[in-house]
């Protein structure tokens, strides 16, 4: 967990990847690929949110619940005439505020309790959405959510929406990366690795975990809202427990530390359900099997394979330097 020493090569790689992603609408054979890429962007945001929570040593099984809250907040506000661009951010803030309150109460307890209560919260969110039909439309959900418009440009079609989703996802990625390098990110990593020692280094680890939960859930709220304006629809089924599980799967399969893991997880797993749509059930079985197999054989995720290779090079380098020093 060293601050990564970034070589120019990585900058070039990242730049090429970003340019390729941005140019997708021009070389995608049909709109389905753009749709997939848009889903990928939103999944990436959700998984990054989960990754931030995991960075501080916690696991949220209620991630979908915050996306659901965000989706409804933004849909309801924009359907009452608010600018969707504004309501996206309000959605994120509402989700973050709920997470802050919930986190402050439950993060004092052992990790298991946190997981159980966060899970229970997400189920409550679904039930509320079902039950308060006078505002939420009940099981039918809300249809006709306004599209996002930026300075008069209405993002109606897939090629119109995709660049916006990409910008949102890349911004989240960049901010997460900056967060990981910041003192707060360092505190989060320290808390996850040895909470008692971190506490003894003068850091309020409870506060650090609450902040991580708040940020991560806020991102989920924003992403849920974004997706609602993309699909122009939200219902209680949009984010169930199984959605939370799929983000968790992406995170575990990709890797839990660093920002590379979520990217890898999203790239590997986003296309899967869409490709297997015909066989109901099979995609979930594959998700489940990947989750279990990854935990057994690559517990740090696919991205860790790259990191192990890189750190082996690094250690070899340091070792050589020490030997050289000793010889002279």
């Amino acid at each position: 967990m060293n601050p990564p020493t970034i070589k120019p090569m990585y900058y070039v790689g990242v730049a090429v990847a970003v340019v390729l992603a941005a140019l997708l609408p021009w070389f995608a054979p049909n709109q389905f690929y753009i749709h997939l890429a848009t889903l990928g962007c939103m999944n990436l945001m959700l998984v990054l949110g989960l990754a931030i929570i995991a960075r501080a040593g916690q696991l949220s099984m209620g991630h979908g619940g915050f996306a659901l809250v965000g989706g409804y907040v933004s849909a309801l506000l924009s359907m009452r005439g608010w600018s969707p661009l504004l309501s996206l951010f309000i959605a994120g803030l509402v989700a973050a505020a709920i997470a802050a309150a919930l986190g402050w109460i439950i993060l004092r307890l052992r990790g298991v309790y946190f997981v159980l209560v966060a899970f229970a919260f997400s189920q409550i969110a679904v039930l509320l959405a079902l039950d308060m039909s006078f505002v939420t439309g009940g099981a039918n959900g809300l249809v006709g959510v306004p599209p996002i418009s930026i300075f008069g440009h209405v993002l109606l079609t897939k090629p119109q929406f995709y660049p916006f989703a990409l910008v949102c996802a890349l911004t989240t990625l960049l901010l997460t990366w900056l967060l990981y390098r910041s003192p707060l990110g360092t505190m989060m990593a320290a808390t996850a690795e040895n909470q008692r020692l971190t506490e003894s280094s003068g850091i309020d680890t409870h506060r650090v975990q609450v902040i991580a939960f708040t940020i991560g859930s806020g991102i989920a709220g924003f992403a849920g809202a974004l997706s609602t304006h993309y699909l122009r629809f939200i219902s209680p089924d949009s984010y169930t427990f199984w959605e939370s599980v799929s983000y968790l799967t992406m995170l575990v399969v990709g890797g839990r530390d660093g920002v590379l893991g979520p990217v890898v997880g999203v790239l590997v797993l986003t296309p899967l359900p869409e490709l297997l749509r015909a066989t109901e059930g099979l995609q979930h079985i594959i998700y489940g099997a990947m989750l279990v197999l990854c935990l057994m054989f690559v517990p740090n995720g696919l991205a860790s394979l790259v990191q192990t290779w890189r750190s082996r090079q690094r250690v070899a380098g340091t070792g050589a330097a020490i030997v050289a020093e000793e010889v002279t």
Partner: protein
Amino acid sequence: MSMEIILVQTVVNGLMVGMIYVLMAIGFTMVFGIMRIVNFAHGEFYMVGAFLFAILYGSNDVPFSISVLLAVGATALLGLLMERIVFRRFRGNELNGMIASVGVALILQNSVLLMWGSSSRTVPPVISGVLSVGGIVFPWSRLVVIIGAIVAVVSLNLLIGHTRIGRAMRAVAQDAEIAQVQGIRVDVIFPVAFVLGVSLAAFAGVLMAPVLSVSPFIGLAPTLKAFVIVVIGGLGSVPGAVAGGLLIGLIESFAGTFVSASLSEILQFLVVIAVVLLRPQGLLGRKEREA
């Protein structure tokens, strides 16, 4: 209907649902207490038990008692298989064990879905008619559930409290290292506890199958209830699971009858938050030992 009858029926319903929750929560809390695994797949074993029973008894007219035995036995075997293949590798790793159980839940639920489809099945009542006491009628179909669950809880209690293997299980839950020094093989106790927990869940599923309709998606709700109950009653505490289960069952029944079902869910969540705030070790739980 007079108020009296409604009240009694509400209580009976609450006890029925509550006892099912007790069965779920005891299995869940036992697996956690002994193996330190939060089993998100617990409800899927309930679903599998209910499904097998629906197929055997409901669709193929297999005699009742044989259906019960086969449904619970087959689910127990499935549990043993999962313990062998998956869970034993995550002993002592709470976080990854929990994530792996989510994977198992996905696999179980969707395997049933692939094999038998998503449509829900109904199971004919095992027994019909009513028991009438002093003008108040109790439907036998519900009393059977309550009695069946009580029998299961009592026999489990006897097993845990008064047998050699039960003492060994309690010893492992309290101090696994020292239990080994008493000659107890934890690699035997773990699968026994897991299979026992799974069997309770499957039995709960069997009991509920004639009352509810059965589909591959019915596992999540009782899992959530088990969570809520163990947080309220104290993680790892069996008496806590009993008290919590009955409490939640009654809240649900009363709120469902007099207000609305979703309000009762919210009420339960608030109870959880209140317990977490005021008595984090749970109503009947023990404080984690300090230092």
